[in-house]
């Protein structure tokens, strides 16, 4: 796919990294030549230096035959104008823009084809905030992702001795929770995938991915490990865009403390946040953390722009007694290094935000794509089209579908129903299937499965 990315900031370069790896033709446009040079050195892509919203620059970037434009500059207005131009002058089929200001996003008609022509609005900060929020709502989880507009969820978590199901076979779940359906989609044991079957025994330390209707999530989680006490106190280090959004989304339900170093921004934060206690100071300062009772915190989130600061402050908070620490880390090497050690969750912003873009890059009709396990695995919500003749899926039972190795169908969303997949579930046209793909290499095979044969048209 030929893709143009406008803006080589954090979001832009993270996207570029992902998309290049997936084998796309990439052109990155930015005003900052230094950033571009750096990108070009690391990845196989083309760079153009110039104002992203100028037609000449877009033409130079190859807008005439591009398949997709992703506008992720820091400036909402530039992004919107670029999308408009891409539609009017170059007829680029898919235009994605990052819009941060709520003032724009709450007027959805602005993005219609006849106005700014933005096909998809992404708000990375908001997505990371939602991601974090779910981790705080389900403190035992490593990752929680939504399907079908939140009707079904996939949860990743570590099984711990003490959970009723640990040490038992998977099929016992039915006995433990009668009348409640859930499906374990994958188990990772010491970083190797195990294809879950009814007789698989769950062990302490297994990383389990399961799918269930949203209201059943908590009950299933309780099976895997003894429920921790629920979260009441949250401390956030870093009052940037993400820290502020998270605090304002949490403050109604939790006791939130927010630490920022900059006096100017704490003043601003204190005036925009209603209930959060805003503190001026350094989150790596032991005195400050102790004074604010870090040992009583249920969750500590390090969300500054600085990876090292985040790592140090979350290590410190953990050492001082915070129950669970989450750290935002941009560099993917650090993430691999730290995840699962002292730091409970090392979150890479790129991971959390790449999903919506992948939705548009995948072939076949994908409603939702989530990147899991730091990009190694993927969960898809794919739409089934066609009829029995043209489709490889319609009218077949799940056991009849030839799935690539390890890929499993977790659930079927039919209308407003959430049907947990069993071997005899019959797939119908227009169903949304939730698939777990343990390894990215299998993605093309999965895509093929969902493409409708020519006979249908």
């Amino acid at each position, binding site marked *: 796919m030929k893709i143009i990315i406008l803006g080589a900031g954090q979001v832009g370069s993270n996207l570029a990294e992902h998309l290049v790896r997936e084998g796309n033709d990439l052109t990155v446009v930015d005003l900052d030549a230094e950033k571009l040079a750096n990108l070009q050195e690391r990845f196989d892509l083309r760079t153009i230096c110039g104002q992203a919203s100028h037609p000449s620059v877009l033409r130079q970037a190859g807008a005439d035959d591009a398949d997709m434009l992703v506008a992720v500059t820091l400036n909402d207005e530039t992004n919107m104008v670029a999308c408009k131009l891409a539609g009017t002058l170059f007829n680029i089929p898919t235009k994605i823009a990052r819009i941060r200001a709520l003032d724009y996003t709450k007027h959805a008609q602005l993005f219609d084809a006849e106005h700014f022509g933005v096909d998809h609005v992404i708000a990375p900060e908001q997505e990371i905030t939602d991601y974090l929020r779910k981790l705080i709502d389900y403190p035992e989880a490593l990752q929680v992702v939504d399907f079908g507009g939140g009707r079904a969820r996939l949860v990743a978590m570590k099984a711990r001795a003490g959970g009723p199901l640990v040490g038992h076979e998977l099929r016992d779940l039915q006995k433990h929770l009668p009348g409640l359906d859930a499906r374990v989609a994958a188990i990772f044991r010491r970083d190797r995938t195990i294809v879950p079957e009814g007789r698989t025994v769950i062990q302490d330390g297994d990383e389990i991915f399961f799918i269930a209707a949203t209201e059943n999530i908590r009950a299933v989680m309780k099976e895997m490990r003894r429920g921790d006490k629920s979260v009441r106190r949250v401390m956030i280090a870093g009052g940037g865009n993400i820290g502020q959004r998270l605090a304002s989304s949490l403050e109604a339900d939790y006791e939130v403390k927010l630490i920022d170093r900059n*006096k100017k921004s704490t003043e601003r934060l204190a005036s925009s946040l209603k209930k959060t206690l805003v*503190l*001026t100071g350094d989150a790596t300062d032991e005195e400050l953390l102790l004074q604010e009772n870090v040992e009583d915190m249920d969750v500590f989130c390090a969300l500054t722009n600085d990876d090292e600061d985040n790592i140090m402050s979350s290590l410190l908070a953990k050492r001082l007694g915070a129950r669970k620490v989450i750290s935002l880390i941009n560099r993917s090497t650090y993430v691999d290094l730290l995840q699962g050690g002292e730091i409970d969750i090392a979150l890479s912003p790129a991971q959390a935000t790449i999903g919506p873009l992948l939705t548009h890059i995948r072939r076949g009709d994908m409603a939702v794509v989530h990147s899991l396990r730091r990009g190694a695995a993927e969960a898809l919500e794919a739409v089934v089209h066609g009829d029995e003749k043209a489709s490889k899926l319609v009218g077949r039972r799940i056991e009849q579908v030839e799935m690539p190795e390890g890929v499993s169908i977790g659930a079927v969303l039919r209308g407003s129903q959430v049907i947990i997949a069993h071997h005899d579930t019959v797939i119908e046209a227009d169903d949304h299937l939730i698939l777990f793909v343990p390894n990215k290499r299998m993605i093309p095979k999965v895509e093929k499965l969902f493409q409708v044969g020519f006979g249908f048209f």
Partner: protein
Amino acid sequence: MLRRLLPILHVQGMIILVFGLSMLAPLLLAEITKDGAERAYDLAALVTVSVGLLLWLLGHHWRRDLKTRDGILLVVLTWSVLPAFAALPLLFYMPDLSVADAYFEAMSGLTATGATVLSGLDQLPNSINLWRAQLHWIGGLGVIVLVAAVLPLLGVGGRQMLKAEMPTPMKDNKLTPRMAETAKGLWVVYILLTLACIGVLWALGMSFFDAVVHAFSILGLGGFSSHDASLGYFDSVAIEAAVGIFALIAGINFATHFAALRGRTLLSYRHDPEIRWFLGFVLISGVVLALLLWQRDVFLEFPEALRYALFNTVSVATTLGFSTTDYGQWPFFAGLWMMFLCSFSTSAGSTGGGIKMMRAMLLYKQVYRELKKLIHPDAQIPLRLGEQIVPNKIVYAVLAFLFIYVASIVSLSFVLSFTGMDVLTSFSAVVACINNTGPGLGNVGPASTYAVLSDFQTWVCSFAMLLGRLELFTLLVVLTPAFWRR
């Protein structure tokens, strides 16, 4: 010096002129009804209008835009000079009235205080009673606001003047982009409410004249009545209820009324952070006092206790100052508590007096913030008033304001008791005057008048009223040497 004053005198002349023209209302009434005060008004109006005209012409050559200092000076001048002119009809009609008493009466009228030195009000000519109430009405919302609404002459310095007169700590709250529009808007609200009040009182059985006089008095939160027995004269629950409700309405920020009227929505009342506290304090206090009076057997029936306690509490707390009974005879706590309420209950931007509920809220929140700071030394805690964040400089200004307010009450009380007045009377007189309430306790209680005061004590009380109406700073700054230095 004179060169500097002349441009101010020019505007001052204009203000006096407008004020003189407002004497036409009682003058006409006197001429038509031939109530005996015609000559007093002829003379007073003539003097006022000609002095105004003279000053205006005198300064005409030197007119220029006013500076901040000029604005403050002009406001202080206006508020101290106008009562002198307002006193003229009283002096001309009652030659044996002392100058101090006449000035006091006029000042009490214009600052919407309602403390009176006159008795035998029922026998006074209607035009005199109208004039007294009219002073309340004009002074209630503010003379400068009136002038700004009528004449576009105030120019750039005008906003400063409006700010100097405005009874609120948050002076930069602009309702409309242009000052004259703001002033007009406020007057429209004021006039509409007054008309409504007149209509209601008239419908409830007052004579039309009494309805007008009392409506003027209520909306300005003054307290002059045309009867010695104040509102007790009517002895009607319905009238008391209506007066209480309109007093509460006048105790709410007029900017809120304005926003409600302009947007045709009641939402602005919900967003006004002061209203809840104002109504809560006043009404709960009324009920608690009713219980107290009932329990102490001042009233044998609870409904009766509730009627008197609620009305008098609302009346004093809103700084209106009507009374339906001599609450000086109630348990000591009741009177003292009512005096306490009147010092802070009304909203900023209302026609009431005192330090205003907004300042009280800010003080409370500042104390709470200090306490919180002890627990979390590094916390950034903004001071929030409703949705709005209050800048620290306003909090400091409020703290200074409270200090001066308390200091003024203490020192003026000392001055009065130095002249031989008993402590309760002197303290309550100062509190009642500086809060522009009217009746105090002891010898100046609701059943008596300020006529018992000596001339000197009367002047002190006049000063206290002015101090309170101009919210201390505006008046005090003119008294500092720094103000006069170039």
